[in-house]
């Protein structure tokens, strides 16, 4: 659906300049982020690709970052907007630390802050073109939430952005359970990422898995998944329907 932004007469020049500052479409984008709650905290996975339209321009982008002591933020969508959000959060965390009162921002607070930021940018018709995944653990309580570019937010035991919503969520709905072990959680995430690799054309086979527990955040070294391309559905896709392609 397209949406026309109204402009009054007489202020055309001034508004035209302001208009050129507004986001119209994303340029360098990251694809899906998938995250789950597990026994000790949160596991999050994303690949390291940055696409420029249909070109795979960047292959070493970290789309998951630690926020403060208790949170992990993953982003899909426009990479420059993600970097802007990280700057906002730097300032937020700095001010939180400057209070020096022993209190620190938990994932619920960061998620709420991000929801407000995304919603306010949407109100000004200049959105941050990202879908964010915010996970964390504080005082033993696990938290996992998502915020979209227009400010829609919710929390759940498993979340995914973009294509992950269509391809990974069904797998998670079927196979996620309470108190997964670390190994089982990683296996589950890898299963989702593998499906995304086969079916999302902007996915690349170079991913990171981040772990968030009470002790802190660890982001794994980049690695790739083993893939199998000899499925008959891939080698001989039209065997069931002669004449199709």
């Amino acid at each position, binding site marked *: 659906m*397209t*949406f*026309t932004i109204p402009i009054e007469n007489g202020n055309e020049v001034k508004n*035209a300049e302001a208009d*050129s500052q507004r986001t119209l479409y994303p340029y360098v984008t990251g694809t899906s982020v998938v995250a789950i709650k597990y026994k000790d905290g949160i596991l999050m996975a994303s690949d390291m690709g940055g696409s420029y339209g249909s070109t795979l321009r960047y292959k070493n982008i970290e789309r998951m970052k630690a926020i403060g002591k208790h949170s992990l933020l993953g982003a899909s969508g426009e990479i420059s907007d993600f970097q802007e959000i990280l700057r906002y959060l730097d300032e937020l965390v700095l001010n939180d630390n400057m209070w020096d009162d022993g209190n620190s921002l938990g994932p619920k607070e960061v998620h709420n802050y991000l929801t407000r930021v995304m919603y306010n940018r949407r109100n000004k018709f200049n959105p941050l073109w990202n879908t964010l995944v915010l996970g964390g653990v504080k005082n033993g309580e696990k938290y996992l939430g998502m915020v979209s570019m227009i*400010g*829609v937010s*919710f*929390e759940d035991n498993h979340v995914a952005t973009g294509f992950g*919503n269509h391809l990974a969520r069904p797998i998670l709905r079927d196979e996620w359970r309470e108190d997964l072990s670390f190994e089982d959680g990683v296996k589950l995430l890898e299963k989702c990422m593998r499906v995304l690799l086969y079916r999302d054309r902007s996915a690349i086979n170079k991913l990171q898995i981040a772990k968030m527990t009470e002790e802190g955040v660890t982001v794994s070294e980049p690695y790739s998944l083993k893939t199998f391309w000899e499925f008959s559905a891939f080698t001989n896709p039209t065997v069931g329907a002669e004449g199709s392609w």
Partner: protein
Amino acid sequence: MVKQNANWSPYDNNGGTCVAIAGSDYCVIAADTRMSTGYSILSRDYSKIHKLADKAVLSSSGFQADVKALQKVLKSRHLIYQHQHNKQMSCPAMAQLLSNTLYFKRFFPYYAFNVLGGLDEEGKGCVFTYDAVGSYEKVGYSAQGSGSTLIMPFLDNQLKSPSPLLLPAQDSNTPLSEAEAVDLVKTVFASATERDIYTGDSLEIMVLKADGVKTELMALRKD
């Protein structure tokens, strides 16, 4: 450079249905817990019911980012009211506040379809139903959201509220007991779930009475 139209919409419909029924000394407010976007389900247990005051409970479907913002505005206005008046807002007062808050954004509306339920100053149940820009009316029962067109005619049939145009004004509250009203709500949601793709997963029912609030969760079809 030709002025380009935005290729994104500031609005989205996250679906869902909300219902409220007013009784002689209770009010039932119910909503499903499914949150969708397009043809995807985002969450199967997202609550659309928000308690604003002791005797006023808001249930809203539509664009959930706007609903959340609306709820925050009302919550903070209620807090200010409590500081200034040393008491909780009554349901009719909250009803007017909600209407004014919605109209305030008449030219960039909150895409929220609201049903406000609660107890009035005499302890009788009351339900107020709204459109997205604040037009409201006190009624005996109402349904809003994606399943409202399926539910409203059935409630009209079962609850047979007298016309609001009658003089002298007749009480629109249902004579049904609380248990019967809750049962009716469960029935309408089970039916709406069959035919509305955006309604389902589970049903949250809140019953407001003078001595407090009871919440119940019922499973609905997940398809």
